[in-house]
């Protein structure tokens, strides 16, 4: 907003008063903007919705049989790096089953193909960046999920995006396929964008 810099100083006290009022309004507006941003960052569409999304992908993804030790082996949802969800994931997945697999949550600083994850939310950390984590999981049947707001361009197979103020997701079906994951068309139909 460049309006306050307009040539009105020659107008004397009136002009000063006008500038003062404008400054005050600007300050109020700035305060509102800040408040709104803060609100947007800490509440829906925010972490809670993203956490819920992360736990809901499982029923629409098919893993290769080798991904599970047995029919009742747990489906492991890993959170790599600096977990933004706190206890929310644990609460959401409590008692949740996908098919015959109970769902459990594991928090990891670093992740690789041997971590035993089925779904990995990559939050990134100084120890392992999201890009490094994605590389570590290259070729493994692990559904990687990243948040576009926080991944710095290192997109997972599923990337949470904000569209018109709503949380949506972009799916990279091609990469998932390379990792022997089959993503349900129902989920693809709901995606904001599907990459092949």
């Amino acid at each position: 907003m460049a309006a306050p810099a307009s040539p009105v100083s020659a107008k004397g006290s009136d002009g000063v008063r006008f500038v003062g009022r404008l400054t005050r309004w600007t300050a109020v507006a700035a305060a509102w903007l800040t408040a709104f941003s803060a609100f947007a960052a800490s509440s829906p569409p925010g972490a809670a919705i993203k956490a819920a999304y992360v736990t809901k992908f499982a029923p629409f993804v098919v893993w290769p049989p080798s991904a599970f030790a047995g029919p009742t082996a747990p489906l492991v949802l890993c959170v790599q790096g600096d977990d933004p969800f706190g206890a929310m994931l644990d609460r959401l997945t409590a008692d949740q089953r996908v098919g015959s697999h109970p769902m459990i949550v594991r928090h990891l600083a670093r992740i690789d193909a041997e971590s035993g994850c089925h779904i990995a939310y990559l939050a990134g950390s100084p120890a392992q960046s999201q890009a490094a984590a994605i590389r570590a999981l290259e070729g493994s049947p692990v559904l990687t999920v990243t948040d576009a707001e926080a991944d710095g361009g290192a997109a997972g197979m599923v990337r949470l995006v904000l569209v018109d103020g709503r949380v949506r997701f972009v799916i990279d079906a091609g990469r998932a396929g390379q990792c022997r994951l089959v993503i349900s068309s129902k989920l693809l139909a709901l995606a904001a964008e599907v990459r092949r």
Partner: protein
Amino acid sequence: MSGQTLPLAPVRQRVALLWVATAVLVLTSIGLATRQEAAHRADALRQAEAQTDVLAGSVSAALAFNDTDAMRQSLQALMRDPRVVQAAIYGPDGARRAQLSRPGVGAAPDRLTAAEALPTDRGDVVARPVIEQGQQLGFVYLQTTPESLASLVGRHTSLIVLTLLSLLLLAVVTQAAARLADANARLSEEIEARAAAEDALRQAQKLEALGQLTGGIAHDFNNLLQAIHGAFELILGKAGDERTVRRWATNGIDAANRGARLTRQLLAFSRQQKLELKPLIVADTLAGMADLIGRTLGPSIELVFDLDEDRLLVMSDPTQLELALMNLAVNARDAMLEGGRLIIRTRKVDHPGDAVLPAGRYIELQVVDSGEGMAPAVAERAFEPFFTTKTVGRGTGLGLAQVYGVARQAGGDARIVSQPGQGTSVIMLLSEASAAALAAAPKAPTAALSPSEAPAATVLLVDDDDAVRATVSAGLEARGFRVLNANGGEAGLALADAGPDIAVIDYAMPGMDGAATAEALRSRLPNLPIILASGHSDTAAVERVLGGAATIMRKPFDTAALADAITRVLRPDAA
């Protein structure tokens, strides 16, 4: 015409059957419609269920990620089906997430719990859980419209129209059949009434014919009685003059014989007489009838006899043959009202044989008139009993039938040759009898009184007619028999102990008749020979009662003939 009735019952049955058919048709239509309706409803429910299942499958992701737009899109797709009036999607917590309703349809339930989500069968409402990989993500709810009456009627139009048309058709047919049954019933009644009327008419005709015949014969009979009466008067007046008595007695007997012949004809006409076939010479029989036929024809008709001289024998009943000739003469007379000529001709023919007659020698008896003749259609039926062209009261239609019957019984046939305006020839072909048959015929009994040959036998004479009994009794006593007189069956039985050698019993008696009397006598005296005297012609009935064991004398008879019969019965070897 027999009392034939039309097959009435089947027509009535057919009407009943038509009603049954109508009922069956209606019931079948209703049943069919009901079944179709049930099937249609089941189909509609299945379809709604399928739609709900599809919805449940398609909205799982939208439900999981609470994508209301996607949910609404799915619902909108569903609402394109006009039968779907409301669709809603519920979250796993039971809260409604999205709904679409048509105008006028109330809101879907705000909440849907798990129990309600199971397939409810309110008919038009279906609910299904949305499950993905065992995870229950929520519920879908679908309400379809109950079918409108117009649509319902529209769907059944063909059946309704078909049923109505069939009913209309059935109604028409049933009515027609009912009318036919009524008409049939009326016709049957009329036929019965007509048959009754015909029977009555026939009886009347027969009576009238009998009356006619009786009237005709009464004249002759009076003459005969006059002759007999006169003879007795003369005998009374000249009782001492044996020659005169003899002459007048002979005259009286002749007259009585003629009377007997007349009564035989009457009996023959009434068809109660058994045919007694015996060999006879046709020419002789005809010659004896010349006077009678001449009187029948009247003066305006010329009678010509053309008789063969071969004197061939035929087997026939002389009385019946005479009657046949009389019938032919009467027919000829009626065909020649303006006068004419009647030729009676006999000749010998050698017949080659045909469908009716075996080959052989026959006597052909032709009666040819110069009358009006007959059309072929009439000639064809002329021998049928009761077929007549004469007006009521003039003929019974039995005359030519009797002629035909006599000819057939004599082993021959009767034929008609006639053309309208050309006169009529009736030809009787009579089979020639063998000479042996003639020799076997019984000889006429001797009329002379011969007391010396009579056995000293006791005759029990039972007859309710005092005059007859007195005459016969006197005649038998004059021939040396001892006679026990009884005026009835009971009286005859009372005399059984008097030791009769033979019984002569009248057949027709009031109370105990001849047959009963004979039976009762036989039970007391098993070996008693019995002679039944019958003025009645029903000899068959007598034979039935007594078997062949009784001798039968036909009334009127000569006392001499009775005496001979008694002698033959008592001493078979002497006869």
